[in-house]
């Protein structure tokens, strides 16, 4: 049965190799066939493979310690596998239409397959080192795909920014791994999770969490995600909505038995998650680029997931992860249809009235938006409910009640803002006066993918119901469900509050674009209103702060190192002058050769004297 697990990894890898090496010589048709069949095969295999673990080979053996390339599939992994391969497959289908005609077609699909392979490696890893391979690898694929149209310098810069910020997180990840290895002697996840606490463990947990922040774009390492929208839209959908950014959540969930020993660390995770959620939902209101709004939305929803996992409820976090994958991918792909139709236009102020002109896009986007804001009976409602209930019940019971109220309150406020920004987006883009430019035809594959995801966004929650988590993970069985969602410990008032928050956002948007339109624009021109408007639309100046704090000093240090140390000191002083000195000395030494026999014999005689003196001294000293 282990061979099936290995095959799940092998299919996308084979797809990458074939497309990467031979793709440029084949027609697009063959490239798409190979590229799309890989995740599909992995998807089928993921359904079929039972829970197993496999050791592929012994990788590093050093001084009695060995690390193997070992993979393990249990129920947590299986959820991730299904989401990655399933949503990945749908996005591959979508890409056939979106990337049609692009000269780098084969390169795109090769990278996508590589990404799938590395992400699968990450979730199937049995020890932290293998997980780190996947971790770094998906960072690399993210870089390659964001900068896919690399000839544009802005896109290349965005790719660099993504990789560098990611690297900051990875640095902490590595340090955490090293500390963990030094006192536990092993990096296997099962060994780590049974560690009893030592004084260094909270530090390790925090470092690993910082690594997760870098990958999953939480505050303060979120700045790369909005800029990462420079990549093709399916890439944004797959990597920066459904899969790569969830790697951080997955990692924290995997190591949850370790984290559960330190409630303080869990509090920190919850605070950062909740803060990121609130902060970026406010930022999304001020954005005008359709993909950037969705990017901020992703960060916000990831904050939700972190809160759920920090509360110890893996079910909550992963439920939301799955439904988020569905509706966020849907939103991105639909945005991609809009962008594709408008020939690359991404600014929503230049769109309008697309409701009548792109009906499929409108309805799909609406479904996604309703799911995102958590309005029943869409999937997003159930998963969001799960998280809010987890934070409320668990935090109030195991930590202070004040903390529980605080987190739950922040999450509810975020729900309100979520509705505001997403319905604002719909209002500006799809309503209003339609433009008159010619729309590009949407490919069948794109429509197909969007339809499938719409269905999943509505009914997907049913599929995620049935799974148990392994015994060593905390079993907060707040909810027992079957097909008819019948929660046991739900608080009706909390549910009502959440629905109220979502609907309130919708109402606010409706009002501000309808009857209260004038009043709102007046408010924005007042001193306080204008001030807030300016801050929010400039993203709270976070990028500028980073520029002054980190980028400028680093540039100066680099300049000093390059110019002064490398050019002046090493090149001129050390190298050039030592060679000049040598030249001078050898010029002088050349004159010894006069050709006279006498001088030669004299030198021989001198040598003989030296040797005799040496022997004499050595004998008598």
């Amino acid at each position: 049965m282990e061979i099936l697990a290995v095959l799940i990894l092998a299919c996308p890898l084979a797809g990458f190799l074939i497309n990467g090496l031979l793709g440029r010589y084949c027609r697009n048709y063959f490239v798409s066939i190979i590229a799309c069949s890989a995740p599909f095969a992995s998807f089928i295999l993921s359904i079929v493979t039972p829970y197993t673990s496999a050791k592929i080979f012994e990788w590093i053996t050093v001084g009695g310690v060995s690390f193997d390339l070992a993979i393990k599939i249990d129920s947590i992994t299986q959820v991730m596998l299904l989401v990655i391969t399933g949503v990945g497959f749908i996005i591959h289908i979508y890409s056939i239409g979106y990337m049609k005609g692009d000269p780098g077609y084969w390169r795109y699909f090769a990278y996508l397959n590589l990404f799938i392979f590395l992400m699968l490696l990450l979730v199937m890893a049995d020890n932290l080192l293998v997980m780190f391979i996947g971790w770094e690898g998906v960072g690399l694929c993210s870089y390659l795909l964001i900068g896919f149209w690399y000839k544009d310098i802005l896109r290349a810069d965005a790719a660099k920014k993504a990789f560098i910020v990611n690297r900051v997180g990875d640095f902490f990840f590595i340090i955490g791994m090293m500390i963990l290895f030094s006192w536990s002697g092993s990096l296997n996840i099962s060994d780590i999770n049974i560690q009893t606490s030592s004084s260094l463990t909270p530090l390790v947990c925090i470092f690993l969490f910082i690594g997760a922040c870098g990958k999953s774009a939480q505050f303060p390492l979120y700045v790369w995600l909005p800029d990462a929208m420079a990549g093709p839209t399916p890439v944004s959908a797959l990597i920066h909505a459904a899969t790569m950014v969830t790697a951080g959540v997955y990692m924290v969930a995997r190591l949850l038995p370790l984290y559960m020993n330190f409630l303080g660390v869990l509090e920190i995770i919850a605070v950062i998650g909740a803060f990121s959620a609130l902060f970026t939902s406010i930022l999304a209101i001020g954005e005008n680029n359709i993909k950037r709004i969705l990017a901020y939305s992703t960060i916000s929803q990831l904050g939700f997931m972190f809160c759920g996992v920090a509360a110890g409820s893996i079910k909550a976090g992963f439920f939301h992860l799955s439904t988020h994958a569905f509706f966020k991918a849907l939103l991105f792909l639909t945005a991609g249809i809009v962008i594709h139709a408008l020939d690359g236009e991404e600014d929503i102020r230049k769109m309008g009235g697309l409701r009548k002109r792109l009906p499929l896009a409108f309805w799909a986007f609406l479904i996604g938006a309703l799911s995102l804001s958590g309005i029943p009976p869409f999937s997003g409602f159930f998963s969001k409910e799960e998280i809010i209930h987890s934070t409320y019940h668990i935090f109030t019971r195991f930590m202070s009640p004040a903390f529980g109220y605080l987190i739950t309150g922040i999450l509810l406020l975020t729900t309100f803002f979520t509705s505001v920004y997403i319905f604002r987006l719909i209002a500006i883009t799809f309503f209003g006066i339609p433009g008159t430019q010619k729309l590009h035809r949407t490919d069948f594959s794109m429509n197909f993918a969007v339809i499938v995801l719409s269905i999943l966004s509505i009914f997907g929650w049913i599929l995620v119901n049935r799974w148990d988590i392994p015994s060593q993970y905390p079993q907060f069985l707040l909810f027992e469900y079957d097909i008819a969602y019948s929660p046991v410990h739900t608080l009706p008032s909390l549910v009502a509050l959440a629905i109220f928050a979502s609907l309130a956002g919708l109402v606010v948007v409706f009002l501000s674009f309808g009857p209260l339109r004038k009043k709102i624009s007046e408010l924005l021109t007042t001193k306080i209103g204008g001030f807030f408007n300016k801050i929010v639309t400039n993203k709270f100046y976070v990028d500028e702060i980073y520029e002054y704090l980190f980028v400028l000093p680093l540039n100066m240090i680099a300049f000093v190192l390059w110019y002064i140390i490398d050019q002046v000191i090493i090149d001129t002083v050390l190298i050039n002058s030592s060679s000049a000195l040598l030249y001078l000395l050898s010029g002088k030494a050349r004159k010894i050769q006069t050709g006279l026999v006498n001088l030669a014999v004299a030198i021989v005689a001198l040598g003989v004297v030296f040797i005799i003196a040496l022997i004499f001294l050595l004998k008598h000293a």
Partner: protein
Amino acid sequence: MTKYLILSSLLFSIGVCGVISRRNILIILMSLELMLNAVNLSLVTFSRYRLDLQGQIFFLMILGVAAAEVAVGLSILIALFRTKKSVDTIDASILKE
């Protein structure tokens, strides 16, 4: 016996002095002979000291070698004299710098 050896080293160093300080090739060759003779003296001294005739046999060998070397050296000198018309070493120093 020490005095014989000291005399030998004295003659040897005088020979070295001759080779280095004179520029006439003939004198150089003669100083070379002087050096060889100094060594011969020390050989015979040691042979007498150890009462072993090997030193004297070696002496005879050196004698033969010296003879051969003088013959060849002088003919080279004559060949050199034919081209350079001089027996000064400085006129033979083509391998400069």
